[in-house]
Structures are given as structure tokens and as C-alpha cells.
């Protein structure tokens, strides 16, 4: 039902604009008149949840683990590394980088940056050195999706906040809206700075915003997120709405905190401290 209304709206809007009206109409017609109808569905092996969430156990974190998570995520998602030496032959005349324009999906921060309003005066010593992984919180009430003027960033039914890179116009309103600095903008073509392109995931073009996608492409194939696999048990991803899930058991047994809870965005990433 929903799908047919959606495709109708799409066709109608395209026709109204008058761009490519004919092929779109033909296509819609060819779809509806046939005896059988094509069906779009999830992969059988796909992992599903009512609301995906994450628990990060800070007791299990070390610098190596934090680094391995970033590395696993960034290399699999073709996140450019501005420190990478550009292949002059393939990308001649590449201009020097501005490190302030770098791109990050998940990266370690000091405790007082990850939790800026929990700066306890006499914070326990170990927290001063702890590499806290920060990433998109996939908020329940996400301010970025509210701000986006084209629904290029949106909340999926399973709680994952995603980017539609095809639709993003690069206004960066979502970046102003995000209270967690989780989003990065492609100020330039990222390809010269990708050491090894992973063919299983697209790169991005210049001019769009990107961020952690909770490995939606992995979940769709029944695989676990990269950071979880690289975390040696420090990260557990699961269904927050399922009382029997591993992640809910962890939340029941440990005291956890979330980043900037007071803003009411309901982050889905919990930290065991």
C-alpha cells in the first residue's frame, strides 16, 4: 500500500516538473498493467530490529582497540584519510588538504570532549586517558532529520538514521543541527585520499554530508557492524526494543550514560562507565 502511494507521488511530482515525464509514465504503466508484479523485499538473511542501538563498554577499551574500530569502519566505508599520500599519477595536481575539513565516522575522543557537560572536577584518573569512541548516536528524536530540507537524511523504521547521498544538496543544515559533531561534509572529492577502495561500498562525491550508517549494508546481508567485530567485545549492537536482546541485558546489569541526554534527542548509543 505504502509503496504504491509512494511511487504514485513520485511519478506525479516528476510529471509535474515536466522532467523526464514520458519515461517515468511509461515505466509506471508497464508496471501496473502486467499480470505479475515485481516485488521488492529484504534479503532473507538480513538482520532486523525494532530499534537498533549500541552499548560501548568503556572498561574494555584500549587505544589499540579504539584505533582498530576506526580503521575497520573507515576502510570498509571508503572514508578518505587526508594523511594518505596521493597517487600523483592517478590524481594529478591534487591540491593540498585542509585537515580541518577531514571526514570521520567513528573516532576516539577524550572523555571531556565526548561528554563536555560531565566534566567532573575530580574525575577518576583512568577517564582522563580513556579513548571514548564517538559516532552518530542514531537518535530517536534526531534533530538532523528534522532540519534536512529534502529528507536526504532520514530515520529508517528500524531506528537507523541514514544519509541518502543521491538526494543531499549539501546545505549542511544537519551538521548545524547535530549536537554530537557526528557529521562530516565532503568539501572535496574524497577519492584521491582513499588508500584502497572497497568495492562493496560506494565512495561519496564532493558536496554531500556523510556519517556512520550503523553498517546498514552489513545488517542487510546478515553480518555484524565492522566496529563491533573489531572491538574485541567492547561494542555490542542489538535491538533496544527487545527485552531479551544482549544489549538490553547489558543495560539492565550496568550503569550507563549517554551523550548530552538533556537535549532530549534520545541517543541510541550507551556507554558503560
Amino acid at each position, binding site marked *: 500500500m505504502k*509503496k504504491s502511494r509512494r*511511487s504514485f507521488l*513520485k511519478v506525479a511530482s516528476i510529471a509535474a516538473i515536466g522532467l*523526464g515525464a514520458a*519515461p*517515468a509514465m*511509461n*515505466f509506471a504503466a*508497464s508496471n501496473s498493467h*502486467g499480470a*505479475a*508484479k*515485481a*516485488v*521488492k*523485499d*529484504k*534479503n532473507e538473511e*538480513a538482520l532486523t530490529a525494532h530499534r537498533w542501538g549500541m552499548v560501548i563498554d568503556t572498561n574494555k577499551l584500549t587505544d589499540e582497540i579504539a584505533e582498530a574500530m576506526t580503521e575497520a569502519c573507515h576502510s570498509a566505508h571508503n572514508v578518505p584519510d587526508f594523511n594518505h599520500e596521493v597517487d600523483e599519477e592517478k590524481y594529478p595536481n591534487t591540491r593540498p588538504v585542509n585537515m580541518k575539513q577531514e571526514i570521520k565516522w567513528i573516532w576516539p575522543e577524550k572523555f571531556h570532549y565526548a561528554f563536555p557537560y560531565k566534566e567532573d572536577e575530580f574525575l577518576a584518573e583512568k577517564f582522563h586517558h580513556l579513548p571514548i569512541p564517538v559516532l552518530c548516536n542514531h537518535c530517536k528524536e534526531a534533530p538532523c532529520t528534522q532540519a534536512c530540507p529534502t529528507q536526504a537524511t*532520514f530515520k*529508517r*523504521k*528500524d531506528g537507523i538514521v*541514514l544519509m*541518502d*547521498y*543521491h538526494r543531499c544538496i549539501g546545505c549542511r543544515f544537519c551538521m548545524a543541527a547535530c549536537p554530537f559533531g557526528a557529521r562530516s561534509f565532503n568539501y572535496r572529492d574524497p577519492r584521491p585520499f582513499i588508500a*584502497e*577502495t572497497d*568495492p*562493496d*561500498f*560506494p*565512495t*561519496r*562525491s564532493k558536496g554531500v554530508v556523510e556519517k556512520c550508517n550503523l553498517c*546498514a549494508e552489513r545488517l*542487510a546481508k546478515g553480518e555484524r557492524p565492522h566496529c563491533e567485530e573489531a572491538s574485541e567485545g567492547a561494542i555490542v549492537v542489538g535491538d533496544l526494543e527487545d527485552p531479551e536482546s544482549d544489549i538490553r541485558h547489558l543495560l539492565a546489569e550496568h550503569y550507563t550514560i549517554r551523550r548530552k541526554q538533556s537535549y532530549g534527542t534520545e541517543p541510541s548509543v550507551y556507554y558503560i562507565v
Partner: protein
Amino acid sequence: MSKNMIISGLVIFVIAVLSPFWAQAVFGDKHVVPKPELVGKAATAKKCVLDKYDMRANHMSLLDEWRDSVVRDADRRYDAVNGHSFGMSLSTGEDSCLGCHEDKAKFCDSCHVYTSVNPYCWECHTNPKEIE
């Protein structure tokens, strides 16, 4: 302004506006329309997502629908009317577009170049064959 000036101005304008047509006729490549070549698996598979003519005319609408389905609805599998099932992806997996049509240059580019269409798919999506 004299009548002659106006008329000659109009003539120059019309010639300029029609330049794509006469430039093609005079200087253009007179090769025949390229035919997308089916090589590798595609040559033997016989069944594509839609039939040949539908595909030629409407693959762009289909891909547009696919990308919304994959990105926004998390539906990645396409069970076509002809009974075959495909992964809705340009280039990842055996049952994606390039998984079957192995040669992008012959399958996508030859027609796109001929018709001066420059889709931005490949600004982000990668051709696995091009990554050494």
C-alpha cells in the same frame, strides 16, 4: 535599425540555435548507433530484469526506484516479473548490474557516450574491475 539588420540578426540566431544539428551533420562522427554488447555472463543468462526494450527505455527510472528502495526502505532484493531475482545494486554482488554485465565500457558507456549522457552514478559507485 533597418529591416535588413533585423532579418540578418534573426538568421544568425536561428543558425546558432540549430548548431548541434548541422555541426553533427557536417563534422560529427558518422558511425552507426552503437549496440550495447552482451559479453560474459550476460551473453548466456538470457534473462534481464525487464525485457530488452523496456530496459533500454526505462532503466534510468528503474535504477531511480531501486536506489530509493535500497537506501530508504532497506529492501535490497528485486523479484522481477520474469521470475528471476536480483540484488538491487549497480556493482556489488554477483546478481547486481555489473555482476552480470561484466564490461561497463561496453554495456553502460558506449551508449551514454554516444548520446552525451553523463550520469553521475560513477562519481560514487565503483566498477570493481577498475579497482586493481
